[in-house]
């Protein structure tokens, strides 16, 4: 019988939640790395027992952990992230040049085919790769070096590379996104990159339609249609049908188009999920009602999903990496909140129930569907 493993990163450690395919009863294991921030953990699609975790601390810096038994035991691997060559500067909040400084790993993306190959998106924004299971890390310098890097500036949470999407049909193509630089694509395995932000409009930057400078919060892809991407921008929910060459606003009837996570149903490429948040200065759901919004039409038309979610006095946030789907039938949808709840739906969002209610603030949620 199939099973589901939910990997949860929090402000104070990691948790591994497991259930059989009914998704009714859950075992909660953790905290792992208690007291440390775990920005992200993710399993290898090529070997579901192989997991990687980003463990970080303001005191002790960055640790990368690796598990070869599905999260039961962990071992630290390499934590040396050194920018390629002379790092140079990016733009600071006040517009002045600021030296590139490694702070932490925001996102880990294992290769689709090799458990020992993994990508890391870091702050200050850069993309690193390891081909030996996380022991050694090397920057893919073409991203920062493609020409606009010196003009990138941090969002409120830092200059983080938070999204890495690998094209399942083209091993040379990947997409990344950076707050607050925008989205970028490579078609040659990471050697060269181009900004893919045409159609984005951000009123808070000097040129609202600039090539870079947009605060992209998250991008999602359905593996059957890698040229179609959905984006939750700072404000605006966007869609591209040509691998990012141009974007259209598909926010439609959302109560607010500000938010952080976005994801796509495992079996329905036109079914998309977002969690609207009131505004960029009020990071909680509108009216104190926690609602996931689902579009079954690839955007424009959205319906609120509220069954089982708190509909009064709820003022949590859902961060960009804190939503995921499983690939069971029917599709499970999961998200974690800054209040420490992890909610699950085993019916594609029609109804919800908490798996756990009282974890530390949730930073990330990933799901593995196990045979």
């Amino acid at each position, binding site marked *: 019988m199939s099973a589901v493993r939910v990997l949860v990163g929090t402000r104070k450690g990691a948790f591994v939640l497991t259930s059989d395919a009914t998704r009714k009863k859950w075992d909660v294991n953790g905290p792992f790395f208690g007291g440390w921030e775990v920005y992200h953990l993710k399993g290898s699609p090529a070997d579901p027992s192989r997991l990687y975790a980003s463990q970080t601390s303001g*005191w*002790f810096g960055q640790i990368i952990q690796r598990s070869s038994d599905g999260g039961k035991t962990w071992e630290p691997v390499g*934590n*040396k992230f050194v920018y390629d060559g002379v790092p140079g500067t990016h733009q600071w909040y006040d517009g002045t040049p600021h030296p590139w400084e490694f702070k932490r790993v925001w996102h880990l993306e294992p290769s689709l085919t090799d458990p020992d190959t993994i990508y890391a998106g870091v702050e200050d924004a850069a993309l690193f790769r390891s081909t030996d299971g996380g022991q050694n890390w090397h920057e893919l310098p073409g991203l920062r070096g493609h020409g606009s890097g010196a003009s990138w500036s941090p969002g409120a949470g830092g200059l983080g590379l938070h999204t890495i999407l690998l094209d399942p049909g083209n091993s040379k193509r990947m997409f990344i996104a950076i707050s607050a630089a925008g989205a970028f694509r490579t078609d040659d395995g990471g050697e060269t990159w181009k900004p893919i932000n045409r159609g984005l409009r951000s009123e808070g930057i000097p040129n609202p339609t600039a090539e870079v400078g947009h605060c992209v919060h998250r991008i999602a892809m359905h593996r059957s249609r890698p040229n179609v991407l959905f984006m939750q921008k700072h404000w605006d929910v966007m869609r591209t049908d040509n691998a990012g060459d141009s974007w259209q606003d598909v926010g439609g009837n959302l109560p607010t188009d500000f938010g952080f996570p976005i994801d796509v149903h495992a079996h329905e490429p036109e079914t998309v999920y977002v969690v609207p948040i009131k505004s960029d200065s009020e990071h909680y759901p509108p009216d104190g009602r926690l609602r996931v919004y689902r579009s079954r039409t690839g955007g424009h038309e959205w319906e609120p999903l509220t069954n089982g979610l708190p509909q009064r006095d709820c003022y949590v946030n859902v961060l960009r990496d804190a939503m995921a789907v499983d690939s069971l039938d029917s599709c499970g949808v999961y998200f974690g909140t800054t209040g420490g709840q992890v909610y699950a739906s085993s019916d594609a969002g029609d109804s919800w129930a908490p798996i756990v209610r009282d974890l530390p603030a949730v930073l990330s949620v990933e799901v593995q569907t196990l045979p």
Partner: protein
Amino acid sequence: MIRVVLPQHLRTLARVDDEVTIDVRGPATVRSVLDALESQYPVLQGTIRDHITQQRRPFLRFFACEEDLSQDPPDAALPDAVVNGVEPFLVVGAMAGG
């Protein structure tokens, strides 16, 4: 034999329960103690001082014999009591938070 006391999180990372003891070749200094410590426990590389610059991480400090050695030159000699193993070399995490 030099005794080193680590903060709890680094003890967990290094999988040690208590203070650790290390052999230092040559003069005992902050640099040579940390070199030996990281050699014995490679997982600590980058957690106490930066991989490249070798600068102490900002929220950590070094103490021994009730003195703050954090700002001393890294090649300054450590007190005899540390060298002789009478007193430990302390790596201390700053108190921060609310």
